[in-house]
């Protein structure tokens, strides 16, 4: 998976304006060549080690595990510390990979969309490192709720452009990025920030992010001498989850949980759970599950977390959902907030609000699992960017 035209079952594919097709076919060709070129991976691995700081730890969260334990029950919880990467989230993994590809293709101008700003910051970072022009599209609402990240992007020389249409969040930022790309197709590389968009992006981003799962595999082998029993990750577009899950998909003993953002609840009209509350559709270059009306109009999502506030999901997740390989569950805003506070207090680690959704699901299941159960949670990002949002939710004035 996927097939040669990028299909995961009936999902994925390449649904873009004809103006973009020749370039996307070039991206595919360049990616095929890069994937088989040891020199490309040498450069990627060197940067992963020396610039990102990989491998990051697989940390046994003893106090968190104790907190959820319940008599003779309670899973042993490990945190995969993507928050310790340079720029503070997993997004840097696919940014390094894609900027190397853009360089191979001779592109000097990079555009990207961002929700929480993590992908925007990571993109601005690699553009500074590789001396490329960088334009970041961000929903006007997200610019407001993620102001620290906006400032970080600007500091590194990126131009941040506000998407003022629609819900003024991630979906609209992606629309604007696509409009920019169609206009500047000759010199621009669109550095897509998730396992979504037209083929080959879902497969390419997955490949770069798979470093997460590969490290977990080796680290767990070293720490416990075996595979983990379960994996938990939050899902907006799905890049951190796919990176953790993919190297384990063939291991039937490993249970996987992808945690969607339920906002005020999936039974309300204020959520961002595309799998649990959406239907088949086509948007942003891919067929997948989307939040939409009966008439095929996209519904504006809601999540407290800007990074999960997207009405769709990567096509491979859609396929895994149909196949039943991954359990896709959902967590509400207030549950995520509780988990945010809990991890901060018990482990001294402030998680991103996105990541807090994964932790909130752990809170629901860890206490019923046997003591020997090894659970890995992808701590996909750090929460410094969210302190203003959280303070506001808690009624604290900073």
């Amino acid at each position, binding site marked *: 998976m996927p097939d040669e*035209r990028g299909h995961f079952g009936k999902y994925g*594919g*390449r*649904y*873009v*304006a*004809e*103006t973009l*097709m*020749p*370039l996307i076919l070039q991206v595919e060709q360049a990616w095929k060549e890069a994937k088989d070129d040891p020199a490309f991976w040498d450069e990627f691995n060197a940067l992963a080690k020396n610039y990102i700081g990989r491998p990051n730890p697989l940390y046994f969260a003893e106090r968190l595990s104790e907190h959820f334990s319940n008599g003779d029950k309670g899973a042993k919880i490990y945190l995969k510390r993507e928050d310790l990467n340079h720029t503070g989230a997993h997004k840097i993994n696919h940014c390094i990979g894609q900027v190397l590809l853009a360089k191979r293709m001779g592109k000097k101008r990079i555009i990207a969309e961002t929700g929480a700003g993590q992908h925007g910051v990571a993109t601005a970072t690699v553009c500074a490192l590789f001396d490329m022009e960088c334009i970041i599209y961000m929903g006007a609402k997200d610019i407001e709720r993620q102001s620290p990240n906006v400032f970080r992007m600007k500091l590194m020389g990126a131009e941040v452009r506000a998407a003022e*249409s*629609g819900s003024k969040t991630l*979906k609209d930022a992606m*629309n604007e990025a*696509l*409009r920019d790309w*169609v*206009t*500047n*197709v*000759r010199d621009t590389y669109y550095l897509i920030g998730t396992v979504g968009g037209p083929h080959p992006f879902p497969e390419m981003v997955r490949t770069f992010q798979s470093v997460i799962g590969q490290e977990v595999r080796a680290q767990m082998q070293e720490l416990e001498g075996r595979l983990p029993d379960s994996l938990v990750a939050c899902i907006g577009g799905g890049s951190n989850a796919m990176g953790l899950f993919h190297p384990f998909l063939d291991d039937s003993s490993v249970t996987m949980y992808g945690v969607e953002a339920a906002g005020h609840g999936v039974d309300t009209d204020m959520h961002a759970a595309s799998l649990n509350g959406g*239907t*088949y*559709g*086509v*948007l*942003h*270059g891919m067929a997948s599950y*989307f939040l*939409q*009306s*009966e*008439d*095929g*109009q*996209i519904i504006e999502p809601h999540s407290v977390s800007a990074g999960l506030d997207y009405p769709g999901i990567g096509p491979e997740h859609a396929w895994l959902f149909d196949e039943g390989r991954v359990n896709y569950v959902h967590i509400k805003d207030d549950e995520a907030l509780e988990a945010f506070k809990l991890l901060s207090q018990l482990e001294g680690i402030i998680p991103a609000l996105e990541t807090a959704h994964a932790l909130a699901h752990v809170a629901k299941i860890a206490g019923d699992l046997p003591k020997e159960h090894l659970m890995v949670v992808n701590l996909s990002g750090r929460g410094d960017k969210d302190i203003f949002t959280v303070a506001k939710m808690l009624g604290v004035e900073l």
Partner: protein
Amino acid sequence: MSRIEQKFKELDRPALVSFITAGDPDYETSLEVFKGLPEAGADIIELGMPFTDPVADGPTIQHASERALAAGATMKRTFDMVRAFRADNDHTPLVLMGYYNPICAFGIEAFARTAHEAGVDGLIIVDLPPEEDGDLRKALEGRGIDIIRLITPVTEESRLKVLLNGASGFLYYVSITGVTGSASADMGAVERHIEQIKAHTDLPIAVGFGIKTPEDVKAFGSMGGAAVVGSAIVNALQAGVDEALSLVKTLSKGL
């Protein structure tokens, strides 16, 4: 012979393709301008199917979609509008333009059947390249509806062959790399490219994107047989039905 073929056969001058968004600013106003277009000089009508996320469109047509949706536009209402138009016009070719998601939601087979019954002659689905249009093409079989393929300034010869395979009705030449309603194209570059395309096909070629004035219509229309005006008409309609129709009259007089 299809209405599109018939139209190009009977015209001894370039055709004017006029675009409006179905339901903009509301159903009644939109239907009124729609019905008035043929008499104002529109040879072919392109009717936009509103969508929340029109990624190939500039602000003018984005806002038209937003207004239409706010006023209650749906795919069903778009077909109602087509039927109402066809009730007293059986000759003007009608092309639906839009994005694939609302078609998927309507159901591909149901869409093809309803479009055929309502009297639609062609489809331009912006985000559906030939690689992905198999399901739709299959549903359209035997229903006499053309899939209008898009060719762009970055289309090279190898890609052109892919696009021409299965193309019918006419071709739509996107004159610039960009979204609708942008600046006008470089005339010389468009003309050179269209000459190259003509070596591979006998289909008429309608040039669109950035075409606003009677001079544009004449110049670009003469290259391949038709010119498309969209955003300029949508803008004029903001001022009123008469303003929109009078613009179309002015545009068509140049031909």
